[in-house]
């Protein structure tokens, strides 16, 4: 494992210093679920183009923070978010901002593959159609094909576009969900443990895909697998008990963590 970890991280240098092209900026973000203080004073700059991984023990608030970035927490009645998050310097909690448009700009891939129980084509076409991205049927066909190709699932499904998305294997379903997310050309893609329900081969395919997508998108991925974080990300943030304890380049974080909790976690002493 150590071997591959090193080779892979070495093969993928960070795109650049975070400060230069910070895409997503969070300042003093606090989240409460009713009485529960789930996220405390989170401050982070996430660069454009590249992969940022959120790691940390279960229940530490990774998903909560991720869901703040596309305001998915709005759908939870007891959830209250304070602080400031900007994407491209625009405050996403600005009351004047339309949350639906925000979600079109910030795509999301969930832990469990959740394709619509519709045809593969319809799964991908739904977003573009909703937002009027395609002007004609031909446009839509093109968007669907392009998205499926970028999600590297095109070859597997091109002859069965009208079959149900739920008939695919788990890994294929997750790539279909990624295709669905990128079909609306988002700026940011959030992935919440996208491989936790998949077998190693499917996982490898998704990781390969994330690599590829990182060239064009700002990807934020939550993972419980240190190896995965090491393999796919350029930057890593370590959460613990609602606090963002440490954040930095993945290389540096895995070889020389600043915080002892980080050290303990990545060496597998708790988690």
């Amino acid at each position, binding site marked *: 494992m150590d071997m591959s970890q090193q080779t892979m991280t070495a093969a993928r240098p960070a795109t650049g210093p975070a400060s230069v092209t910070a895409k997503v900026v969070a300042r003093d973000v606090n989240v409460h679920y009713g009485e529960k203080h789930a996220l405390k004073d989170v401050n982070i700059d996430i660069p454009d183009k590249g992969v940022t991984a959120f790691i940390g023990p279960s229940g530490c608030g990774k998903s909560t923070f991720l869901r703040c970035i*596309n305001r*998915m927490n709005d*759908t939870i*009645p007891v959830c209250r978010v304070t602080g400031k998050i900007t994407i491209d310097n625009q405050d996403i909690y600005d009351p004047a901002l339309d949350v*639906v*448009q925000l*979600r*079109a*700009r910030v*795509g*999301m*891939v*969930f832990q*469990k593959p*959740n*394709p*619509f*129980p519709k045809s593969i084509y319809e799964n991908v076409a*739904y*977003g573009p159609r*909703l*937002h009027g991205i395609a002007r004609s049927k031909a446009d839509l066909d093109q968007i669907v094909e392009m998205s499926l190709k970028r999600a590297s699932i095109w070859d597997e499904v091109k002859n069965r576009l009208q079959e149900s998305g*739920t008939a695919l294997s788990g890994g294929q379903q997750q790539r279909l*969900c990624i295709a*669905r*997310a990128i*079909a*609306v050309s988002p700026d940011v893609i959030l992935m919440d443990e996208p491989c936790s329900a998949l077998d190693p081969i499917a996982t490898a395919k998704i990781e390969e895909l994330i690599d590829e997508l990182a060239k064009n998108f700002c990807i934020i991925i939550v993972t419980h697998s240190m190896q995965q974080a090491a393999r796919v990300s350029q930057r890593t943030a370590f959460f613990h008990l609602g606090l963002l304890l440490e954040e930095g380049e993945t290389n540096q974080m895995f070889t020389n963590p600043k915080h002892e909790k980080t050290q303990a976690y990545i060496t597998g002493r708790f988690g």
Partner: protein
Amino acid sequence: MTDIAGTDGPAFRLDMTSDAAKRRIRKRYAAEARFKAYGLAALAVTTLFVAALVFDIIRNGIPAFTQHSLMMDVAVPADFVPADKRSNPVAIRSADYFPVTRDALKAAIPGIQSRQGERTLVRLLSSGAADELRDRLVADPGLIGKTVRVPLLLSDDADLYFKGSGTPIIKRNGVGTATPSGTTGEITILTSSNDFAAEVVAIKQAAKAKADTLAIEAARLATFGGQSLAPRIAEINAEIAELRARVDSPKVEEVLDGKLPSKLVEINGGLVKLTRLTDISVAGEVLLPLTSAAEAKPGNWRVVTYATPESNRKVSDLEIGYLERLREKGFVENRFNTRFFTAGDSREPELAGIRGALIGSLLTLAVTLVLCVPIGVLAAVYLEEFAAKNRLTDIIEVNINNLAAVPSIVFGLLGLAVFLNFFNFPRSAPLVGGLVLALLVLPTIIIAARAALKAVPPSIKEAALGVGASHQQAVFHHVLPLAMPGIMTGTIIGMAHALGETAPLLMIGMVAFIVDVPGALTDAATVLPVQIYLWSDLPEQAFKLKTAGAIMVLLGFLFLMNGAAIYLRKKFERRW
């Protein structure tokens, strides 16, 4: 086997070999076997009940779907409808069909002279006997002046007779040579052998048995004592004495009355109903005229017994004589009872049909459906997906559930108070029935729809939100369509419930006797279950069959609807 407790402390071992362990296993097996037996017994009992119910309904209901008529050549006289009016259907419809059918019937059984005989013969036909003939003539006026072969509908009693509710008929050949004294009216028949000895003995035995039961009755009354019973006891004793005298004197001729099985003689093509008899001679009344008064050789005449006494059946001996004669001549046909499905209600069982009730049910359910589905689904979607979760919505939710448990008659009272008395809607109308049933079914549909919406995994909605659908878009594009089979199942079950509902409709007057098939939502109408209720209350035996037949139709619809619900559920069943 590992030692869980470790080196110190007691050893907790999995013990599988000791007697205690074996006992444990046996006990578990016994418990499982017992449970299985209870389950099977419960299942058997339910199956038995259902099977008995279905069997009984089908056995009673099947005869309602056929009806006996007389297939006859009816001569329609040329002057039946004047030639210049034949193009007018109204003139053809309003012509008097009674003489035509009467003449056809008289031609079928010739020689009946008495007025009473003729009246009895004509009454075998239904009052709607000529309906088919009328329709034929209206459709083709060219048939006027010709002989038309049409079925003439029999009356309900005649129909029931052919369906087997009459009497067992026993025939035996005469042994001696029989000589009738005439061909019509009151005649006597002498036989050369003592052909009627058995009958005389049987009558004496019946008389003896009756005397014995009367004696017991008299003794019972005597134990009460008291003056008030004395005349009654004296009366009974006199009757006993009379019966005993009859039993003891063998030479006296026996009189047959309606309380004994009827005895008849078939001779020379006629039928004689016996009234008095001795061993070798009988006197009786001619029901069907004899062709001649010539003597009949042994084997050429028969003694006929109608085993059920005349007073215990709906059809008289005379009617049976006519009906059997008509059957022998091949006029009687049992045909599918289309009228049952095409006619409205009627006071005459053989003319009554369920069409009025069916259309009434259809119109009522249409109103219910049109109101319930949109209101129910929107209410469910709003409550489930959009309404804030607070006290108010909690109260609404609890009350919707309560409403589903309210006895249906209460909805009827509500409908009476609100729709009839306040809004002055017409009574007995499918519109009001539909409104009331909508109130009744709405909670069911809301509950079913909410359950169906809840069953759609939230991940689907999240997926839609994730690609930038608004909450409402996510619900209407994804959640609602996926919940639709469940909602439809709930709706169908609700509708089936509404279809079988009676009580609330009684309250709003849908229980009236309505002959016309309703054509509009505001016409007076009744519905299938209420029709069943109405028919089940009528005294005529034939309506009992109609009731069972209508129940079969209702159950058919209910099974169909529930089948559709199950089909939908199976077809759209999803694994996420």
